[in-house]
């Protein structure tokens, strides 16, 4: 097995002047303490599960109005907004968005502002 040549030997072979700093070369073991690793336990559920914005069926609001609100709040194109509106109408609920809790809360607040029945819930 061939040992790798020392870098000084390589430098000599290439005729390069090398300045060495003995203090660095002879430096002893590091005196920096090992970092202490703290273990923090969080349930997988808290870390992974996104929050969902759910809109529930409501006999008060007109279908066209609900479609318009979905377009305005989520910026969805008309077709997608209509699809969700029909899902709310036929299935009783539709998941409009999922992601971070803060954003989900903001969406629910906006939907309540438009008088839609909306809740946020953890994805299951």
């Amino acid at each position, binding site marked *: 097995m061939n040992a790798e040549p020392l870098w000084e030997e390589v430098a000599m072979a290439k005729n390069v002047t090398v300045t060495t700093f003995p203090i660095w070369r002879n430096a002893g073991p590091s005196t920096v303490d090992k970092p202490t690793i703290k273990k923090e336990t969080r349930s997988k559920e808290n870390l992974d599960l996104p929050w969902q914005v759910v809109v529930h069926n409501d*006999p*008060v*609001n007109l279908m066209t*109005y609900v479609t318009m609100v979905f377009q305005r709040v989520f910026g969805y194109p008309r077709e997608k907004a209509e699809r969700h509106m029909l899902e709310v109408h036929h299935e009783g609920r539709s998941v409009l968005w999922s992601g971070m809790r803060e954003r989900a*809360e903001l969406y*629910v*607040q906006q939907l*309540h*502002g*438009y*008088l839609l*029945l*909306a*809740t*946020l*819930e953890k994805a299951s």
Partner: protein
Amino acid sequence: MEICRRNDEIEISELDPFLAELLRQIPASANPEGTPAAEKRLFSPPTSGTETEICAEWKLYVEPELRRLFQTATETVAADLEQLNGNEKKIASTLRIPSKHADAWLSALNQAMVFFKNLSCANWVVGRRVPGIRPASVPAPLT
């Protein structure tokens, strides 16, 4: 009645006096005060009830904001409706709604719809609720 759009305004002309009177009742109808069911629907909880912490925060921070939003909308509509006041003998028959007030109108009309939908029992005389009439779910006090 004729509805047309003119220079950033929606103009409703030749309004029937009865319809004009109905429109004038929108701001009062949108007020859920004294009707717990309507109040509950207007300020519904943000979760299905399991997340109590979120519900408490919502009540504290979001609900007052929603209340202000609804109130601003009804105030805007009430201001627009002042055009219908006319004089004592005759109600004006033309209403001009600035396009930028459209959202406020949508909100106020929706609030009124929510209110009526959640009204289980109330008596109305010329668009005003008669005090003392309570929803059927609330029993009358024993005398």
